[in-house]
């Protein structure tokens, strides 16, 4: 295969016909059992089955992960996105379908799951979720019908691998790097350089 990287290539004048983009999915991962699902990223895929497969092999392997959910971008309704935290309202009720509620703790932060509410439509779901979850800190609420939130199943629980994955994490190199620097720099100079890395760059 690597030969393909070396040989000079030439092409016909025309590109193959365009292929439309897949549906857009939003992906959330949970670090531990019982922990909230936090926004991780996006995938494009024709259906939820492939969306979850793609999500597992990308975001599921970015850091320790025990579960993944996804929904279509179009299935989500975001409530107002104020400068100030949301005030709890008084909308209540138990009619309608179930909605998954995502909350945003700081503007510009990432959504995470908070629980569910019942409501006949998205706007009511946001109102009821505000009553339930606004606690003086939350900035915004997103709701998605439960029927449109898809989750990795029990039978495929293994996401994060059991073999050593520190080769793909910065912390996997810290000890070696420190030991090797000791040939070139004294401990104090190295320590200052490392601290500056953390404070200013990483």
């Amino acid at each position: 295969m690597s030969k393909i990287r070396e040989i000079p290539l030439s092409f016909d004048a025309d590109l193959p016909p365009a292929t439309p983009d897949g549906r857009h999915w939003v992906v959330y991962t949970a670090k531990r059992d019982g922990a909230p699902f936090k926004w991780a990223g996006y995938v494009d895929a024709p259906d939820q089955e492939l969306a979850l497969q793609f999500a597992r092999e990308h975001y599921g392997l970015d850091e320790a992960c025990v579960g993944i959910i996804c929904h279509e971008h179009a299935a989500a309704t975001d409530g107002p996105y104020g400068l100030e935290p949301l005030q709890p309202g008084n909308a209540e009720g138990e009619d309608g379908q179930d909605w998954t509620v995502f909350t945003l703790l700081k503007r510009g932060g990432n959504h995470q799951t908070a629980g569910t509410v019942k409501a006949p439509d998205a706007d009511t779901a946001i109102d009821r979720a505000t009553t339930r979850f606004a606690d003086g800190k939350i900035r915004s609420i997103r709701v998605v019908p439960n029927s449109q939130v898809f989750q990795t199943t029990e039978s495929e629980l293994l996401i994060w691998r059991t073999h050593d994955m520190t080769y793909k994490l910065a912390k996997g190199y810290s000890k070696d790097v420190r030991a090797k620097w000791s040939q070139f720099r004294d401990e104090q100079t190295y320590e200052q350089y490392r601290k500056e890395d953390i404070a200013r760059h990483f």
Partner: protein
Amino acid sequence: MTMQTMLANPLASIVLMHADDLLMLGHVQSDWTGLAPILEEDIAASSMAQDDLSHALVLYQYLAEEFDLDPDAIAFDRDPADYRCCNLTTVPDEFDWAVSMCKRWLLSTYTKLGLDRLALVDEGDLGDRCARLRDESAIHVAHLGAWMIRLGTGSTESNERMQAALNLLAEEAGMMFEPPDLGFESDEGFCCGRGEMFDEWATLVGATLSEAGLQASFTLPDQAARGGRRGEHAGHFSEQHAEMTEVRRAEPATAW
């Protein structure tokens, strides 16, 4: 102990056979990183290539501890004739995603069965290691199997491409079951039975193929048929091995 002691050990040759398959599968597939047909699947395939390499490493580390060797030396510094990977794993895919897909699926299904068997071996922590790898190998089989069905049934064009890839690989596939060592000429010796494992593999593979609308027939080759498992590799393996070890060989006795 030496590399030769390890190579002469019957159980080690079974372990090496799987480790070398995984090394070369990961070697060839990792080269696709950045070039696959869909960005999302590029990432997924690369994750699985990293698993394959990691699994090979877990097995090399076991052997390294048993025989007091360096895992990298086992992985890279053997003579090509001392590798026990099968021919299928090294067949060049010529930048054809269908070949890459079919090859990985055929091999992962086989590897999963091999690890099932090695997981039962009571020899140090080999069984434990293989049980863990087997669970991850199952992820690959599920992912790749789903893709076989998607591409087999996706369009006439994709069905034809997948069928062509299978036609290219089917004959080599049987040679996965070549015994790696002369000590394993009998069925029983081959870590729980060569014929039984072939039947189990062919049944699993056949079920997915029929769901995918694809055809292939596989045969268990004669014990005497010699190939990669006994060090008789195709020419492309030597090229791959030379490329893989190019940097390492430039300054052999140093850390990289």
